[in-house]
């Protein structure tokens, strides 16, 4: 069964009576365990689509399902709970809470979920080790490099064992070597944990690593290919 499904998903931004069709009739299915990339030039609607799928924003028309939940009709509180329990987020900018340490950032969603101290400790230590940050648990974000910060963000996204990880250009601000390391890590986590990854990029090196490639242009899906 598809973990993500959309039906004529559209989003129109209205600003000073000017209408921008950011997304038009997107029909999409992402399978469980997929490692999919949303490609397309800047302004093609990648962020808009990820925001819809992540229950961060509502579409103008159309519907979307995530792990069986019809997200477009959920209340604000239910969307918040869906994000907490089913989705892991990695953003391009501003990912971490500056006042919390690497460990506390990764632990945060588990605290929101009310997971016990012991289980949190086990889970977070294991994840930080997996993303290669053992020994840096007590650093604050500003004491970490850009790549290390995104690793913390990955650990946080995976901490609650979400059905899907949504990442909006997670490597856009990193140098290519760090980028490759991060992609290796996400690929490995996808393989080891079976977590579904959907991330956006306009970088050919990233697009290369996709097993599933969806290309957007002007808010329309122009190609959708599998490469196993």
């Amino acid at each position, binding site marked *: 069964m598809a973990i993500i499904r959309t039906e004529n998903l559209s989003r129109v931004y209205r600003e000073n009576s000017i209408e921008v069709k950011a997304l038009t009739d997107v029909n999409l299915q992402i399978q469980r365990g997929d490692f999919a990339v949303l490609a397309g030039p800047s302004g093609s609607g990648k962020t808009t689509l990820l925001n819809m799928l992540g229950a961060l924003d509502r579409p103008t028309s159309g519907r979307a399902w995530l792990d069986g939940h019809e997200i477009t009709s959920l209340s604000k509180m239910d969307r918040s709970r869906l994000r907490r329990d089913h989705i892991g987020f990695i953003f391009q900018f501003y990912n971490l*809470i500056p006042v919390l340490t690497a460990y506390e950032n990764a632990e945060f969603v588990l*605290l929101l979920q009310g997971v016990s101290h012991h289980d949190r400790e086990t889970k977070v230590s294991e994840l930080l080790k997996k993303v290669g940050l053992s020994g840096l648990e007590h650093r604050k974000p500003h004491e970490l490099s850009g790549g290390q910060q995104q690793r913390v963000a990955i650990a946080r996204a995976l901490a609650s064992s979400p059905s899907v990880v949504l990442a909006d250009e997670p490597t856009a601000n990193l140098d290519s070597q760090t980028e490759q390391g991060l992609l290796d890590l996400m690929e490995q986590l996808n393989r080891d944990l079976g977590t579904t990854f959907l991330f956006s990029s306009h970088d050919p090196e990233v697009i290369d690593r996709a097993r599933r490639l969806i290309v957007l242009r002007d808010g329309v899906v122009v190609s959708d290919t599998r490469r196993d």
Partner: protein
Amino acid sequence: MIARLAARNLRRHFRRTLITTIGIALGTALSLFSIGLGDGGHLQMIENGVRIGQGHLTVQMDSYLESPSTAKFLPDPEPFLAVLENHPGVRSVFPRIRGEGMLATAYAAEGVQFQGIDPSRRGEADLFRDSIAEGDFLSASDGAHIFLGQKLAQRLKVKVGRKTVLTFQDSAGEITSTLLRVSGIFRSGSSAIDGTICLVPIGTLQRALGMGQGVTSLAIYLENPFAQEAVYRQLERSLPGGSAGLYHWQTLQPDLRDYVVLDDVFGYLIYAIILFILAIGVLNTVLMSVMERKREIGILTAIGMGGGAVLRMVLLETALITLIGIAGGLVLGLAVNWYFSVHGLDLTSFSTEGWDLAGTVIDPIMRSKLRPHRVFQLCTAVFLLSVTMGIYPAVKASRTEPVEAMEKP
């Protein structure tokens, strides 16, 4: 977890937190100081007022209140004294006669207010005893002596040891005169008091007025002036009934009461202004910190922190700043109050005379008096007001839309 986030957020903007905290602390301390000084000043005024007047509570004939006259006297004060002297809340009771008359010498005559007192009772008329300018206080309770104010003595051109004649209506309405020798002269600092009041032994007046053991009032001084109402209610029940009643100083000295009430209202106005400024400061700080953290709150919301939790986080931050500020204000305010309760605030340099007001004498050295319930009142007001100021920013923060908050820089 919310508490940890709140505490860290405050620590991150240490300087801003510190400035707000200091603001709250100073506001609290300033309010405590002015409450302490105001209450202390009022207490001094009231204490002096009732010392010159007829006590915290007074027994007198009910008809005396409408038109004071020595004809309206309490013929047998003994049963009253028996009750009053045995009440634990009563420090002392003084039988007195008050009346108006004419005091004359060979040179002049002046209208006076005479007070018959028992000089053998400890503590009686100590305000006058403590301000002797010349001569001695009255000694025997039935000697033919008079103790008068300096202004009055000057107008009458009378010296210690000289004779005066006091003329008044006796209890039967007849005009009577009695010869009194000046035993001493006092100077209280209030020209109204120094120019009109003279003290005469009560026995001498009782004989001259023909009222036997009668008195016009029993002035009651309490151990604790703040217990006035409680003692009043107890005495009310145990005192003999009849045509004599028990009165509050507030009824007998309405000028003093009105002055204190008015000054209290003025005081509240000042605290209101201090609290208003404080509230604006808190609102500004919390609002600024919330707007600055818009993206951060966006992330928290995006990863599933609910609006309620965000609201609680901001309110908790406000409460924390406030509590620290109040704690600092308490330390500072109590210290300052302690200093001024021991050393007093010396106002003598502001005025050299005329420390009389509303029928009382104002001490030129004000001592602050801070009662626990006033401290509690103020701290509660500061806390509630400050946290209320956090509500708007907290609600605003809790409604953050993650998408808007996290737009590109």
